[in-house]
């Protein structure tokens, strides 16, 4: 059913892709609505027997429970809007149709992942997405940096995939099933945490770390910005990287029973959120700022799941998908209208030249900064609240991150749209309507998507997301937490306004000089790339070189020595051979030659004749067997 959605690649023009994903949306939305709107957690399931081996059975099928329904909604809506946008952004590119083929395949993978009812099917879709991601990052493969970024993303996420696969094997071995419903039942019967289960959960989480670009495997996501901007919006902001978070949510029945795994998840998320938020303010490439912001927000979601706030994590996933897709598409519009320059230091004053882009970007920035009552405020607040009740250090991490987020997002907004254009040579222009209309629609979502989870609508979304196996997780609302997060966001915005506003009060350059080591570290992304280069890539290269040298000297030397001695003894034997043995052989040869002169007529060299002989032989054998027994 649902898995078949986007799989109409091949005849890939943009219109077909858009039509396919719209069709997917049209089918998926009522379905999602039906699942979400019923008071008891309604689920749609459908599966068939896939493999049977001895007494083991592997089933596969679809399972649409409330979280899956929510994701279906998000993926189809953002996916369709982004594809509409791409028809404008990619217009005139020589590999236009290939782009849409990849994007459609990606959509199919994502939808398959969302509705998969077991880990194996989920893993297959996961890999499809990984592949599409690789293709799309390296889409401009004429640029060596794009090709390298694609490779880097592929290899880095592969580490996570190996973890996920090992986790799946371990889980199959311990629990005997990979289907989510059976896992929930299994966990309900085994409330005690065991080492094997914890290991399985942690290994599955390694998959999340890779896919969702969590610390320490986050390095691929900023480089992934080499891809076309709509791809960055779709894959590296709204959907694929959220798949890791969704994986934890899908296997949450494991995590909620395993405190060790849970706290590992929460801390990885918290550290990622803060670290990425620290790197973002020093970046000057508009897309890289957004990339680090994405990593940071993903950290938030992971942290939410780690502290047990299941609904809040998914809620943030949804709001983030909308406003981050909007931010990336807005950035794409800026880049498109600014003749493919991505450096914010050359921009400025674009507010007047691109009014629609500016307005929508402003809404998204307010939303991500957590300004009430926009989407980001409700979901972020929900997460901070849960963190506050679960672990104070994590809450502090989260709150500081919120402040930094507000700061660097407003820095982006101010540097791009306010003040005077710094590089006067570029003539900026607004994008065509096919690109601005998706922006406006997404802006509406970014503004309003928080409301279903707000107290004004009675936390409708949180109740709708409930699934039967979930442990109840109630947190007292706290005015203090909410007030503080708004305050911190306000402080971040204020700081950004002071430093990057039309009349800067504090000079960012002076500040960077004062805290030079911190600034340098942040600018260089805390040296993660250099660290990996030194710790993993170079040793691997050196090992390869050392092995090659061993081969060259030791093995080749031995081989050459053996060859030489063999040659000498062969020389001696050769003389004996030539006179004694050859004489005998020649005699034998002469006899055989004479005989073969007759028999070689059968060797025609034509395959048909040989085959005919074989067939005749078989028939003759069959006939004799039949004759003997009958």
């Amino acid at each position: 059913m649902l898995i078949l959605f986007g799989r109409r690649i091949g005849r890939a023009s943009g219109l077909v892709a858009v039509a396919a994903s719209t069709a997917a949306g049209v089918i998926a939305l009522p379905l999602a609505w039906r699942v979400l709107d019923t008071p008891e957690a309604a689920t749609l399931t459908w599966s068939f027997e896939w493999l049977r081996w001895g007494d083991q059975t592997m089933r596969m099928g679809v399972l649409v429970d409330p979280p899956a329904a929510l994701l279906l909604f998000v993926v189809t809506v953002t996916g369709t809007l982004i594809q509409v946008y791409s028809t404008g952004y990619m217009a005139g590119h020589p590999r236009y149709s290939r782009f849409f083929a990849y994007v459609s395949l990606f959509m199919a993978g994502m939808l398959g992942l969302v509705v998969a009812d077991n880990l194996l099917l989920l893993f297959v879709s996961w890999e499809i997405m990984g592949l599409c991601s690789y293709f799309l990052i390296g889409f401009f493969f004429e640029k060596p940096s794009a090709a390298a970024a694609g490779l880097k993303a592929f290899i880095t996420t592969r580490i996570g995939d190996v973890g996920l696969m090992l986790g799946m094997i371990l889980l199959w071995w311990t629990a005997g099933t990979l289907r989510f419903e059976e896992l929930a039942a299994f966990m309900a019967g085994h409330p005690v945490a065991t080492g094997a289960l914890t290991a399985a959960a942690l290994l599955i989480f390694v998959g999340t770390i890779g896919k969702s670009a969590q610390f320490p495997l986050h390095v691929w996501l900023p480089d992934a910005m080499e891809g076309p901007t709509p791809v960055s919006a779709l894959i590296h902001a709204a959907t694929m990287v959220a798949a890791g978070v969704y994986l934890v949510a899908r296997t949450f029945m494991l995590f909620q029973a395993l405190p060790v795994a849970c706290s590992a998840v929460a801390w990885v998320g918290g550290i990622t959120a803060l670290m990425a938020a620290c790197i973002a303010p020093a970046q000057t490439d508009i897309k890289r700022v957004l990339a680090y912001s994405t990593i940071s927000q993903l950290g938030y979601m992971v942290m939410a799941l780690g502290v047990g706030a299941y609904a809040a994590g998914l809620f943030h996933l949804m709001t983030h998908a909308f406003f981050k897709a909007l931010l990336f598409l807005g950035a794409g519009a800026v880049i498109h209208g600014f003749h493919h320059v991505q450096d914010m230091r050359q921009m400025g004053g674009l507010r007047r030249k691109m009014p629609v882009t500016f307005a929508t970007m402003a809404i998204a920035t307010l939303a991500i900064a957590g300004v009430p009552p926009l989407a980001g405020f409700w979901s972020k607040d929900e997460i901070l609240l849960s963190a506050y009740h679960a672990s104070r250090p994590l809450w502090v991490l989260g709150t500081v991150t919120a402040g930094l987020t507000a700061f660097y997002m407003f820095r982006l907004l101010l540097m791009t749209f306010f003040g005077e254009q710094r590089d006067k040579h570029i003539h900026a222009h607004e994008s065509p309507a096919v690109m601005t209309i998706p922006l406006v629609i997404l802006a509406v979502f970014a503004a309003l998507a928080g409301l279903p989870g707000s107290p004004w609508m009675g936390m409708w979304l949180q109740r709708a997301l409930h699934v039967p196996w979930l442990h109840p997780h109630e947190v007292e609302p706290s005015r203090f937490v909410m007030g503080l997060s708004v305050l911190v966001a306000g402080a971040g915005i204020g700081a950004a306004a002071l430093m990057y506003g039309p009349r800067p009060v504090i000079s960012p350059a002076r500040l960077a000089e004062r805290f030079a080591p911190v600034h340098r570290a942040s600018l260089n992304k805390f040296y993660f790339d250099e660290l990996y280069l030194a710790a993993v890539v170079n040793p691997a290269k050196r090992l390869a070189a050392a092995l090659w040298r061993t081969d060259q000297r030791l093995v080749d030397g031995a081989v050459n020595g053996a060859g030489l001695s063999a040659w000498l003894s062969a020389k001696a034997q050769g003389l004996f051979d030539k006179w004694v043995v050859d004489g005998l052989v020649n005699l034998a040869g002469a006899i055989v030659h004479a005989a073969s002169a007759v028999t070689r007529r059968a060797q025609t060299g034509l395959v048909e004749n040989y085959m005919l002989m074989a067939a005749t032989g078989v028939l003759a054998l069959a006939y004799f067997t039949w004759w003997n027994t009958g």
Partner: protein
Amino acid sequence: MIPLAAYLVLSAALLAIGVWGALTRRSALGILMAIELILNAANINLIAFARHVRGVDATGGPMFALFVMAIAAGAAAVGLSIVICIYRNHRTVDVDRINLMKW
């Protein structure tokens, strides 16, 4: 349940088509395809007997069929690469015109 004889008839028919194809095709590719048909005829037999004959280990037949498929895949790969090599050297895959194996 479909009677055993039906499977055997299907398999015999496939075998016959395969043998006929292998003997009459002039394109090396056609011959390779025909050989695949022969192998699949054997597979149908294996699975049909595993399913129908009592007192036989039911997993043996499908297992053996899987082996046949795997090895057939390997053989097809080797065969195809030979065909490609021949094509590169002779610009043809017509077996009537290739008699490299002649003495």
